């Protein structure tokens, strides 16, 4: 949670402490459980019209009631939301959060495994619940992320998680949300001299080899599934892990940027009958109609990026608007652990360059929930969904907005993240 300055801030902090002091089982970091009534604010459910002067009742970790006439049960802790807004928790759809802390330190960055094909590796079992980055992320209302292993061609299984919880079992919304695939590509030469003809050819050959290898793996995965379905014994864990993919139950999230790579990914999906989500997809705007036709959703890469010199200066900012107009379902991602909390500001840039505001909010909430198959649990403020939501002084895409209360799985998350702690310490240093 972001703080107000000086006296106001201290008063607000005290108010929060008093308001939440009642239950005896106050838990730092994970947040206290209980019954909460968020009262009298503007509720933006995303799945419907916004409700003025409305309230949300949270019980047993879920949204129990939403409306203008919700009454508080006796044991409810009341959060006054007068003049404020209530939003569904935001979702960052591609991050290393929890897997990797400081990227440059090897021991803090165990996000990738040896070998090109690790479909059986699961991100969910390797997450640090006390990651400082996770702490500051939830403080800005980002209640869910897709955390992804990296490197290789099939990196492993990405997990859709809450950004607060006791154990990885506790935070998992969907332990295996998608298989992470990196579409083979030539290495980027941005920082060195351009490759000569020989280097280019080598790089192209390498790409062709990787692509053949990927097709071979997918082909074998299909054969393996057929055999197992017919009664054969489990023989290989990698192919065992891929069975939900080939059966179409779990999608693959494929990182592909250029039009060529995107078309290649689509061809893979067609050939092998798998569902894919595109990630990155810098050139998606070039093939928006095709994506809409094939119903392939897109997790956009960081909007805080620069286009190539021969692209329009606003190519990356305006691309989401193009996808929206073409009817493509998409979501935003930061690709960052430390700055996952900024995902709404990525969306804000898109709004400035042509994406309607409500479409931007949807791409931060309900769309990713649908894309990852967890829309029954999160993504909007609707009865029976998990109580993943936050109270704020304004539009979450507005940098100036303060997030005052965050709920994850119905627990009221305290504002004791690293940044608030250091702020408390040094803001109260006696002056010289």
């Amino acid at each position, binding site marked *: 949670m972001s703080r107000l300055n000086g006296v106001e801030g201290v008063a607000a902090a005290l108010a929060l402490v008093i308001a939440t002091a009642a239950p005896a089982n106050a838990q730092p970091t994970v947040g206290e459980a209980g019954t909460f009534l968020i009262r009298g604010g503007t509720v933006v459910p995303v799945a419907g019209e916004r409700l003025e002067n409305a309230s949300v009742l949270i019980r047993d970790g879920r949204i129990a009631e939403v409306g203008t006439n919700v009454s508080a049960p006796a044991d409810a802790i009341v959060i006054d939301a007068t003049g404020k807004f209530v939003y569904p928790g935001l979702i960052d759809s591609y991050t290393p959060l929890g897997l990797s802390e400081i990227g440059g330190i090897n021991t803090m960055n165990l996000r990738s495994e040896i070998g090109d094909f690790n479909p059986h590796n699961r991100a969910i079992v390797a997450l640090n619940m006390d990651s400082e980055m996770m702490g500051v992320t939830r403080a800005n209302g980002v209640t869910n992320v897709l955390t992804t292993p990296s490197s290789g061609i099939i990196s492993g299984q990405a997990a859709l998680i809450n950004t607060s919880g006791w154990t990885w079992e506790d935070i998992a919304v969907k332990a295996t949300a998608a298989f992470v695939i990196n579409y083979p590509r030539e290495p980027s030469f941005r920082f060195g001299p351009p490759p000569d003809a020989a280097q280019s050819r080598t790089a192209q050959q390498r790409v062709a080899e990787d692509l*053949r290898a990927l097709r071979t793996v997918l082909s074998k995965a299909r054969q393996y599934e057929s055999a197992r379905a017919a009664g054969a014994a489990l023989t290989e864990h990698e192919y065992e892990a891929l069975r939900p993919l080939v059966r179409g139950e779990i999608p693959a999230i494929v990182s592909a940027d250029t039009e*060529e790579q995107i078309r*290649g990914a689509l061809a893979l999906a067609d050939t092998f009958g798998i569902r894919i989500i595109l990630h990155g997809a810098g050139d998606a705007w*070039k093939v928006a109609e095709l994506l809409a036709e094939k119903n392939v959703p897109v997790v956009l890469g960081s909007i805080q990026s620069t286009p190539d010199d021969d*692209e329009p200066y606003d190519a990356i900012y305006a691309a989401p608007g193009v996808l929206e107009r073409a009817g493509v379902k998409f979501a935003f991602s930061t690709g960052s652990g430390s700055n996952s909390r900024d995902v709404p500001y990525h969306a804000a840039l898109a709004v400035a360059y042509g994406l309607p505001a409500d479409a931007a909010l949807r791409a931060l909430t309900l769309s990713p929930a649908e894309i990852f198959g967890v829309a029954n649990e999160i993504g909007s403020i609707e009865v029976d969904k998990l109580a993943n939501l936050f109270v704020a002084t304004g539009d979450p895409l507005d940098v100036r907005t303060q997030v005052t209360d965050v709920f994850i799985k119905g627990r009221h998350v305290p504002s004791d993240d690293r940044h608030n702690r250091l702020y408390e310490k040094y803001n109260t240093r006696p002056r010289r």
Partner: protein
Amino acid sequence: MIRSALCAMLAAVATLAQPVQAQPGIEPIQTYALTNARIVVAPGNVIESGTVVLRDGRIVAVGANVDAPADAVTLDLAGSTVYPGLIDAAATTGLPSVTRATRGPQGGPPGSFQQARQASEPPPRPPEIRPDLLAADVFEPQDDELERWRATGVTTLGLAFDGGIFPGQTAAVSVVPGEHGTYALRTPVSLQVLLGRRRGGYPGTLMGSLAFIRQAFHDAQHAIHVEEAFARDAASAPRPSYAPEHRALAPAVGGALPVWIHASAERDIGRAIELATDVGVENYVIVGAQEGYRSVDALRGVNRPLIVSLDWPRPDAVTGRAYEMHIAPIDGEDEAGAEADSAAALTLRNNAAALTGAGLRVALSGYGLDGPSQFRTHLLAAVEAGLSPEDALRALTVTPAELLGLDALVGTIENGKLANVVVVEGDLFDEDGKIRQVFVEGRRYEIPDEPPRAQRRAAAGDAATVDGEWTGSIEMAGTMMPFTLTLAEQDGQLSGEISSEMGATALAGERTGDQIVLEGTFAPPGMNAMALSITGQIRADELEGTITVQGQAPIAFSARRRTPGSARMMREGGRP
């Protein structure tokens, strides 16, 4: 002894009225009378029909009414033109490469604090920083290289190193093999300075090099002051430094030794001028100046001579292209981009003409090109772009002779000068002109007919023919599949087909320079039609490229031409 006997025998053979076969090695010096020739004595000074007499390696007579001496080998050059031998003032031939040298000793010794303190002292002598090294001392050319120079009509070379910061001092040599000492015409000619980098030490950036060069001149100036003080009163003066770097730079500081500063792009030309002004060097020449056309005012302001290189940068990398904010079209050909590239390429080729037109003193050079093979092609391109033949000739004779300090010896066909002349059938600056004979210091070399056009263009790295049948194989569905690609070209447009065991596909496309692009529709039996595209690059009889089938990743391939190019040869019209 045996050698001179051999020479005598060859001389005897030569006096028979049979053409002497071109041979590598040293040709004998004889007395020649070149008669009935059109003689270009100097730019703008032409004798329509006359005689030149060469004796003992010198020009001894030239004129319309000169008689051939009795003892001369008389050559009837009716229909030919005799030019002064050409001069490339900045060639890297025969010198050790600085850019490809193994890394010199690491700069700045590591480790202790005391050693860190000393890190700012000049590091031990890496190849990039050896201002005292004389090019003449390390000149070791290959015979065939010199032969190729002669084939372009060049009879005098200025030797310059290919990189570094202070790689050494330039020299001038004649284009004949032999111990370098004998054929060196002048050493040193100039102090060479480039805005280069030192690998593995200071300076490793452009800004570092600029500071380093300034400091080097300060150091040289200081060394001079100290020596003068020492000469006045040894007892009280500090001890002079006899470091080779200081000795090398001292004459440059004084102005006695010209400084050649390399600068290609507009901003580097500006930096070179600023640098020279800053360190008080007035006697300097700018080498390269490929973007000189953008700096005409600044260059006229300082009015220093230029050695203009024919090694043009890529048209999409010239200064100012970025301001065009070119946005690539989403699909289809990038016509606007290609047009802009062509326009920029034309402007670059016209650079020398722009500079001579602005009244600047220009010498032309192939510095940066891959040796003499590209020199003539680029020279002709410059002439076609607008450089007048007379200005071109001046830039290859009189002006470089002056810049090399050799105007008394070479550059024109005048009595007393070295017997360096070029005999051309046709016009020297016309692409149909053929250089038939070259005399270097009185030695005669016959220039053989050009090798087959395809090979020559391959050596020139320029446009190539497409016509023919190309065979190769590509990996498809896990196996190697042979194919045959048959192509024909007309006016830049290509047509043909690719056939394999999967059937034949008609192709259409075009060629730009040595790049080809082809498209067709591939319909293997029992499958849907797919778009097929082929891009490739031709070098002589090799074609390398990629085949892309719709929706798939490109597959690399290489193919060889089975038969030589068809009789209908392409003109060299494919220059970028």
